[in-house]
């Protein structure tokens, strides 16, 4: 693995981690949601610091180079993350909808009751 790629991996990981910490500090983010990113960045840093791991696994899986392995693993992890995020968004949307509908119906019921009292 080239020094440049290792440097880029470490740099990006550290910047991402710093952004996470800042968001947590500004209380814009639930800690649960940062765990994935912290672990993800940790893996990237590990691979950059100890390229032997990449070389070893790449050899094991018969990849042409450790770089290929890293790219593939990163893409795969991101696709998975994206998929689960879609599932989460869908669930959230459903819950917001249910709440909005309940509020609207309750409000109408309250108005009707007030009207009939008059």
């Amino acid at each position: 693995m080239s020094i440049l790629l290792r440097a880029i991996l470490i740099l990006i990981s550290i910047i991402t981690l710093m952004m996470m910490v800042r968001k947590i500090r500004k209380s814009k983010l639930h800690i649960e949601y940062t765990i994935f990113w912290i672990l993800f960045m940790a893996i990237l840093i590990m691979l950059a610091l100890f390229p032997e791991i990449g070389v070893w696994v790449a050899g094991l899986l018969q990849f042409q180079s450790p770089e290929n392995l890293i790219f593939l693993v990163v893409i795969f992890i991101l696709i998975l993350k994206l998929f689960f995020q879609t599932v989460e968004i869908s669930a959230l949307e459903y819950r917001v909808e249910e709440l909005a509908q309940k509020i609207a119906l309750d409000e109408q019921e309250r108005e009707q009751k007030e009207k009939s009292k008059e």
Partner: protein
Amino acid sequence: MRLLVIIPAYNEEMNIENVVENLRENYPQYDYVVINDGSTDRTSQICHEKGYNIVDLPINLGLAGAFKTGMKYAYRYDYDMAIQLDADGQHNPKYIAIMAEEMGKGYDIILGSRFKTEKKPFTPRMLGSRLISLAIRVSTGRKITDPTAGMRMYNKKMIQEFATHINYGPEPDTISFLVKQGASVHGIQVEMEERKGGVSYLNLPRSVMYMTRMLLSILFIQNFRKRDI
């Protein structure tokens, strides 16, 4: 038999008054509810000033969410039948009685179709309709002549199902799914009016998105859905 007319309305200040007044004056035997889908114009004010029965959604949920609110209303107040009537004045309430009579024969859903007996014209818009019809035919074996027409009446069983389940939008893919799962659906011939004011929601990109979503949903996704009732 108690019947509820559900009128989903999103920014319909130009039409809502005509639609509801027509209903109140000429068809006082039907209960109705306007579902204001978070409109940003005067739709809600007009309804409140006139004393219409209105449910105000605090946010815009889209047609499916607004219609579901109407079905929840019907479910909450125990209606036997519910019909969707568009707030743009395209649906003529004179067909409600005919549809309700058909429903009495034991159907789950009655579809108002512009092309039950009339021929479908060859316009770009109807090309989409034909494609959806074809997809439903491939998927269910049934011929639905006017799948995109919104004037649909539902019985009590359907009200409960629509009110309490996810992915039951008032769209052709839901109809296709229900037909496939054994719901009894019947169409009757209706005429539809031209929209009187305001602007239609449909434009080219939205139409393409809509078609893609419908065809994918009818031909593919609905095969994996389970109907738990």
